[in-house]
């Protein structure tokens, strides 16, 4: 399967990456090379094979229902969370106006 320039432009917009004409022109043959190469996976008969979901068998754990059991991943860290934001105002992440 190969992708056209229009399809690459669509994928780029789905991926939220702005691409100019020149970059799109460059990307189309590169992506097609890679896609041509992965086509060989179609040769393998995988009927009856389960897709892998966990590489090493592991049991799903439930954490104890304790508030702030792990401080680094719990609440109450607003300032830390905002510390690296490009724009942080009044305790929120600032973004361009979304609703007119």
């Amino acid at each position, binding site marked *: 399967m190969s992708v056209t320039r229009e399809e690459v432009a669509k994928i780029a917009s789905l991926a939220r990456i*702005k*691409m100019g004409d020149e970059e799109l022109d460059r990307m189309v043959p590169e992506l097609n*090379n890679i896609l041509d190469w992965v086509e060989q996976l179609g040769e393998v008969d995988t009927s009856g*094979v389960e897709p892998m979901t966990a590489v*090493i068998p592991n049991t799903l754990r439930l954490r104890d229902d304790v508030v702030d059991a792990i401080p680094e991943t719990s609440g109450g860290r607003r300032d830390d*969370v905002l510390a690296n934001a*490009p724009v942080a105002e009044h305790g929120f992440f600032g973004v361009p106006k979304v609703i007119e």
Partner: protein
Amino acid sequence: MTDFTNLGVKDIRDGVAGGDFTAREVAESFNAAVAAAAELNAFIVTTPDHALAAADAVDAKRAKGEGLGKMGGVPIGMKDLFATKGVQTTAASHILEGFKPEYESTVSQKLWDAGAGMLGKLNLDQFAMGSSNETSYFGNVSSPWKKDGTNAAMSPGGSSGGSSSAVAARIAPAATGTDTGGSIRQPAAFTGICGIKPTYGRCSRWGVVAFASSLDQAGPMARSVEDCAIMLEAMAGFDPKDATSLQMDVPNWEAALSADLKGKKIGIPKEYRMDGTDQAILDSWEQGKAMLRDAGAEIVDVSLPHTKYALPAYYIIAPAEASSNLARYDGVRYGLRDLPDGAGLQEMYAATRAAGFGDEVKRRVLIGTYVLSAGFYDAYYTQAQKIRTLVAQDFEKAFEQCDVILAPTTPTASFPLGSLNEDPLTMYLNDVFAVPASLAGLPAMSVPAMTNSDGLPLGLQLVGKPFDEQGVLNAGLAIQQRAGFEAQPEKWW
């Protein structure tokens, strides 16, 4: 001042504990070596004060007669994929330039708790995507090695190329690496050092910038098998903050090291004899067999029939996971923001990601977005995940006949920087021998075996059963003892 930069992890730790020298003296030596090696471009930022503070803490503990920890007094390089509190963490990308985490990754915290200090944050391929260290926003890393009689800058491998370059150049006794599809083993092989990727889940991924979450695994890179065993013990262990972390005790790998392989069977996968593999690589493989036989092991032939499909499956699965993981870089919560005049939220996302990601990252995010998109998901992603099951089953069957698998780490020795840039696919082929073990989550190590006719190092790879890091380390030790690899790059930096 005595120069301590020829010492490895074990020698430093034991020397500091025994009072032969202080941790501060060691840290000063390595800080000076790092500062003098800027030409390698191995570090994105240096943190000499961190190394000195950790050393002073170890020296103070010793004065009080307290225990110094598994890595007591050892200054290390930290791949810039690990979040380090208050120290810039970029994954070698522009989009994270200036990001200073408010938290410490579990692996780095464990290393500091074990008495290690940090020399700085090591350069890498951007978001760990690359096999040559040419995709960093902060410039290429050079290998300390040169081809005999030439002056071209050589690739230190990737993605952990800053780590491999620093350890091989003796500006760090050891460094952290991460391995998604060979990113510890391939650079270790290119630079004549050791590196081990443990079983998936041994090392916590919490605080490690994510590339492909079902594959990413941290591990140590050092100049000897013993040093890798020591450092892996310090890095590994259960972490409640990582849902994929293994709830298992960390074995005492260092204490159980043994190069006596009597009763062990070493498997040789016939599918790894691929067209295009250098004759020198095949020769090193033969030598590896002879060394392991000499250590008492029996050599048996095994088959991994889906080897050919592992690499293309990887280049669906890893980009798919990357496209999802990298969605978090949107210019809102951290890192770069590009807000063109009058732009709305969607345009801000698109402009930020266009400006912040390098070409290889964009390429992989696009591939990942494509294979996960409606209409293509089953044909690509589900098929790749099924092939991943078959690759893992191949290993399971092979391990019914053998204890450890021996293979080359890479199909070629290092190449000059810039020589493979024109074609991403050729670059991907570098990891053809490393990727299968990654897909199966198995422990795997590269150990230097010999140098080729150009004077460049070649590595041998050992792959073990799940949780059998010991078997991998022991076979690696048997090779290390017999190969007697002592070649060093000539200092030009």
